[in-house]
């Protein structure tokens, strides 16, 4: 990683041409698309993108249209990271043969929570272990939204999906969310971070840092989905902000395993009275609507308790510098 930090202003970013173009077919109010646009604003030169199957792969490549203004590759659901390792290996050999003269060619693999936490986990783990130079961006909309809102291992406890429907038998999903960043940190990666599109400056900075790392980097981006969460499209970014303010999704970065809270989460750690109750985040989301009934009130308490517990653990980890 270079020691000099990339400095930019909002005007620089706004004036930079989009590499993920308008005219894609995502739902109105789709936050993952904002994530893609912002990720692409952080590129530093020649870049190759590979995607796993998922919403963001579909909306940008409906035949005969493509929304990508750069080389883009998709093969199957499980192998975004395997594609990235192939591209990285190809770049290395072409550089050896003198066919690539650029100082660096960046590889970005983008996948949803299904393509990362469930189906693509072994390919990702393998690519990281082999030490390929790529940035893996996980846009986490907490379910298989593209195929009809099925549960994934990223769906939080209590959420109603079509395969964990809330009713008289179960009150939404019963299992906890898989701690993917902890799994990636256990691979002893040089750069692991979490981000959310509302804090776009933070997101862009983290993408650039991830690209500058020589070796694999992992970025977990929280991206509200108005269709799957059954929320108001206009409030996608508000939920992205609330997820940080309620500590449901704290944002931090770990360079060489040393964890550090990013500014919006740091503010809450320094002024705990600013931390909002999880109810503020759950309210208005149709997937949590059933929790606001007397018989399910204990689930909200449980979500609050586990959120506080995770937040306390994170604060301890940041303070001790351990992963």
């Amino acid at each position: 990683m270079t020691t000099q930090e990339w400095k930019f202003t909002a005007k620089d970013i706004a004036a930079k041409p989009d590499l993920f173009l308008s005219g894609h077919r995502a739902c109105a109010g789709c936050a993952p698309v904002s994530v893609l646009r912002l990720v692409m604003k952080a590129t530093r030169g020649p870049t190759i993108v590979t995607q796993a199957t998922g919403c963001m792969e579909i909306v940008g490549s409906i035949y005969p249209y493509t929304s990508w203004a750069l080389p883009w590759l998709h093969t199957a659901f499980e192998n975004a990271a395997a594609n990235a390792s192939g591209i990285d290996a190809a770049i290395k050999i072409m550089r050896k043969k003198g066919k690539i003269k650029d100082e660096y060619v960046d590889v970005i693999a983008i996948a949803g929570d299904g393509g990362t936490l469930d189906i693509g986990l072994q390919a990702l783990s393998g690519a990281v272990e082999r030490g390929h130079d790529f940035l893996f961006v996980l846009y986490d909309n907490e379910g298989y939204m593209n195929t009809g809102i099925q549960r994934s291992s990223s769906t939080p406890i209590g959420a109603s999906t079509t395969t964990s429907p809330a009713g008289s038998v179960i009150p939404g999903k019963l299992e906890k969310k898989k701690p993917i960043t902890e799994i990636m940190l256990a691979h002893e990666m040089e750069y692991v971070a979490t981000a959310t599109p509302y804090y776009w400056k933070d997101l862009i900075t983290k993408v650039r840092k991830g690209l500058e790392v020589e070796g694999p980097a992992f970025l977990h981006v929280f991206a509200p989905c108005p269709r799957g969460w059954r929320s108001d499209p206009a409030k996608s970014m508000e939920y992205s902000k609330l997820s940080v303010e309620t500590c449901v999704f704290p944002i931090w970065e770990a360079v060489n395993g040393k964890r550090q809270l990013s500014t919006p989460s740091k503010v809450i750690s320094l002024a705990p009275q600013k931390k909002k109750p999880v109810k503020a985040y759950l309210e208005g989301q149709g997937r949590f609507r059933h929790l606001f009934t007397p018989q399910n009130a204990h689930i909200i308490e449980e979500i609050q308790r586990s959120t506080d517990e995770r937040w306390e653990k994170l604060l301890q980890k940041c303070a001790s510098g351990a992963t």
Partner: protein
Amino acid sequence: MSNKEKTWKEISIAGVPPKSSIGFLTGDWKTYMPIRDLEKCTICLTCVMLCPEGAIAFLPEKNKIQIDLGFCKGCGICANECPTKAITMKMPEEEE
């Protein structure tokens, strides 16, 4: 099988979408359209960054913001996030 069919060596190695989606206008999806109050707008660029469609462009040479209704799907994120509340969502007929 006719002899004219291409063999695996001749077909392209992957499916290639040949057109840019810039030619596919999504503006007719919307119900409400964003109306910007030029007096309230401070050009903070929040809407430019958060718009999922890339429908709000910043013109650096004029220091202006332009909303492209040809792509705007009318989600209302810009109106919800605008710090000065300069953007409101209205039905097209209300505008006249």
